[in-house]
């Protein structure tokens, strides 16, 4: 975890769901020539300063998230990372309440206080040869970075993106540009296969030895029940601190009580008590 002061490079609406709620893509960048990390500062003062990295890259693992302080609101808003480089983060978020509504109005150039590097992330090396990635709604966002990680490991990737309707689809072209097999499912049939991601999977019958999923809990539950292979799911829970010390997002798992923000958000299929 680090606390960074990042600048909005882009904050644009890219889709809209059937309820009229817009989806935004936001790109956050390291300000030019700045020393923006508070975690760095206090670690350097400490006796264990040798553990602090010299160059502070923004790179994170797929499935990890950031926690953004939104001006005028007390709690931060946790958002998973879709893509990252040394100095940029790309995130997708839906306007679902007052906090994300305000976030959507902030123009490029606005500075935001962001906790980075939160959560455990997916384990791409759990897949031996071919991976199936299934996302629902904005659950597709972290799967993009995961697809890149899997490709870098030489794994084959099939991705299934589920949405309510065509107007809500995001990242389809980005996945295709990676060269991965990309399937779309929509509830109303306005794009791709009509139905759930499980319907699209049944039709296409992709070969895979491990699956990864992120999306609404009912979708992930159905998927984990339907797919015989082992896999991982990224869970969602209302969070307080986002960093594992307030115990606001605890859930029960087969291996005991776990904090979604710190021990997760990614859990093994076998560990989840739906």
């Amino acid at each position, binding site marked *: *975890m680090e606390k960074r002061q990042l600048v909005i490079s882009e904050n644009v609406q890219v889709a809209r769901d059937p309820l009229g709620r817009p989806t935004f893509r936001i790109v956050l960048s390291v300000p030019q020539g700045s020393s923006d990390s508070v975690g760095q500062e206090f670690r350097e003062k400490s006796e264990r300063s040798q553990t602090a990295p010299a160059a502070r890259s923004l790179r994170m693992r797929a499935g990890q998230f950031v926690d953004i302080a939104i001006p005028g609101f007390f709690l931060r808003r946790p958002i998973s990372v879709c893509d990252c480089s040394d100095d940029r983060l790309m995130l997708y978020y839906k306007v679902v309440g007052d906090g994300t509504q305000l976030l959507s109005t902030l123009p490029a150039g606005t500075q935001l206080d962001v906790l980075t590097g939160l959560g455990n992330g997916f384990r791409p090396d759990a897949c031996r040869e071919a991976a199936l990635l299934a996302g629902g709604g904005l659950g597709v966002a972290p799967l993009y970075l995961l697809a890149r990680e899997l490709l870098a490991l030489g794994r084959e990737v099939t991705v299934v993106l589920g949405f309510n309707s065509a107007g809500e689809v995001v990242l389809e072209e980005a996945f295709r540009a990676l060269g991965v097999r990309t399937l779309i499912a929509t509830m109303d049939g306005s794009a791709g296969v009509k139905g759930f991601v499980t319907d699209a999977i049944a039709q296409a019958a992709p070969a895979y030895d491990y699956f990864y999923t992120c999306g609404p809990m009912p979708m992930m539950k159905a998927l984990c029940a339907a797919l015989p292979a082992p896999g991982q799911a990224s869970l969602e829970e*209302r969070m307080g601190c986002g960093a594992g010390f307030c115990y606001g997002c*605890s859930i029960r798992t087969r291996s005991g009580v776990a904090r979604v923000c710190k021990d997760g958000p990614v859990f093994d299929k076998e560990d989840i008590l739906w």
Partner: protein
Amino acid sequence: MVKDLGISLCGLHFANPVVPASGTFGFGLELADAFDLNLLGGISLKGTTREARYGNPTPRIAEACGGMLNAVGLQNPGIDALVEDKVPALRKIYRGVVIANISGFSVGEYAACCARADACEGIDVLEVNVSCPNVHNGGMAFGTDPQAAAAVTRAVREVSRKPVFVKLSPNVSDIVSIARACEDAGADGLTLVNTFLGMRIDIRARRPVLANGTGGYSGRAIFPVALRMVHQVAHACRIPVMGCGGVATAADVIEMMMAGASVVQVGSENVRNPYACPEIIAALPELMDKLGIDKLSDIIATV
């Protein structure tokens, strides 16, 4: 000139008066990789009961104007894990004051847990939580009645050699009467305040936001109310006070101390900013300089 941030309290030395409040800093270890914990004057550990508790169902957290609601419900690994695992592990990396926060569902449970904590070498202070609003038939039930608060204090006092601080609830009509009852029953000090019992409703779903229905309201918004209670109690009692409630800045720390606090606990601000405590401590010397304060302990209860 060099500023003196040190505080002496009940024979203990705090390097500075800033202490993360119970429940907002886990057992300390959770934040060991975030910054050097030895920057902190003390740490108040997460509320602990005799048996391990999962706590309340989720959602346990809700946004509220100027603060937040929580209904975690005293999730903790139990007193055995506290004294055998958590505190020894923390002591390997932390030299400051360690405050064990103890909760319970009966006078006997409070006494039993405090006796265990008292015998644990790494613990310096027992903070007796008679003010948790998120559990039934426990916690706050003992902190809203002077006689019940006194009974818990007396029972704990009898089994403890270490300083006993009673953490008070603000959900009372007369906090001074509770504070005096605890003082008379042998408390060495008081921590105040815990959270305010609150509620939010999701107006679209037409149900409470928190699964527990109600929760404790905390954050910057409660600061003036907490400050008033600290002022009242500090001037009515002879024992020291740890001030708590909505503290978010170095200025808040100084204000709380002028009101009567010897040590100042930072709570919900940690939840929105894990670096809140080291940031506040780093800001204190410059603010002291501006205000003409050389020694922080000089300003306690001066207003």
